[in-house]
């Protein structure tokens, strides 16, 4: 299977997080599938017996997901985005950085444009902001905003009412 990166003619990345897609990674894939199955079973079990109770007495803090900018449409349904957004963004980042393809539908910049908070103007500044609220809940560290701007480009059109 040809690796997608080879299409860009740039030197191949031997990055830390590169997915080779070779048979060598079959065992992790099998493990992941197994873990996913187990997790799914666990989630169903929890949903069946404990979750309503927890939700009823409000002891489990739920992430507050801020609404996206009005009049915008996400590139996929919420369930897909919740599960797949890391893979979608990781795939696109190589196409953009190495291949120079910009303006694709899956773009971190486009995510931020729609999901930046109306209050803080950012997706990661305050604890209630779009990216941080879920990532704090899932205890997954988010590294994107060490380098990427967490707020949309400030343009004159956006500033004016």
């Amino acid at each position, binding site marked *: *299977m040809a690796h*997608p990166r080879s299409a*860009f*003619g*740039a*030197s*191949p*990345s*031997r*990055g*830390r*997080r590169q*997915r080779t*897609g070779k*048979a060598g*990674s*079959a065992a992790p*894939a*099998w493990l992941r*599938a197994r873990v996913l199955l187990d997790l799914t079973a666990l989630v169903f079990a929890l949903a069946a017996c404990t979750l309503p109770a927890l939700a009823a007495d409000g002891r489990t803090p739920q992430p507050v997901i801020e609404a996206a900018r009005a009049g915008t449409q996400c*590139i996929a349904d919420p369930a897909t985005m919740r599960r*797949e957004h890391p*893979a*979608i963004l990781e*795939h*696109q*980042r*190589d*196409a953009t*950085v*190495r*291949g*120079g*393809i*910009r*303006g*694709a*539908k*899956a773009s971190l*910049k486009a995510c*931020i444009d729609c999901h930046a908070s109306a209050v803080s103007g950012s997706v990661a500044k305050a604890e209630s902001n779009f990216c941080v609220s879920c990532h704090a809940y899932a205890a997954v560290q988010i590294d994107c905003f*060490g*380098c*990427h*701007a967490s*707020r*949309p*480009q400030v343009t004159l059109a956006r500033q004016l009412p």
Partner: protein
Amino acid sequence: MNPGQRDDPAPDVVPGPASRRGFLGVAAAAMGGTLLAGGVRLIEVAQAATPSPTAGANPKVRWGLLIDTEKCASGCTDCVTACNTENGLATPARPTDAQWIRKIEIKEINGQRSASLPVMCQHCADPPCVDVCPTGASFKRADGIVMVDRHTCIGCRYCVMACPYQARSFVHEPLSEQKPDVPRGKGCVESCTLCVHRIDQGQQNTACAEACTQAGHGAIVFGNLNDPDSEISRRARAAATTQLRADLRLGLGVRYQGL
């Protein structure tokens, strides 16, 4: 086990102890299929999710700069300021801040002649920074632009050492207020990108060249060295140009006139 056995088809109908190997073969094939399906699905997502993406780096193009040192004004730093503003670098820069372009003054030791010129990443055809990078983060795009993929850069700074032009900088401190088009962060090496975000959007001019023209000097020309009709090619044909440290034979994308 003989060496050729691996390539044989899995004997999935052999009875007895060998049938376990057959089962493993079938299982491996099934997992391989799962993986392939996963990979294919990802590609479909990316391709279907492209309403109007740009075409990407064109391998027929070779972007470059021509710098006319006769026109470059001593003491003028408009190109440096424009670069800092465009890419969100600190202005005025502290000694430890990253520097993508700098102005230098050179003078003949036994003569009166002096020249002022900007120096930035020379976008080599055979970049030493790419040769030494242990992670593949330092790379050359199809259109000749040499860049750092910050996603894979580990900040080892081998490229800083390898570059003969001291074009690369390391970001020592946490940054904030980056430009959405120019992500930058602590722990990575960076250098001039020839305003790659502008090029990808079809805007064929760098911030430094634009500022130089606006200042009335017109000392920096940006263009496609592979296109014989471009201004940069015409000027490179009309006058003698120099590559810095031409003895290294790195095939530079930045040419100097009047040195």
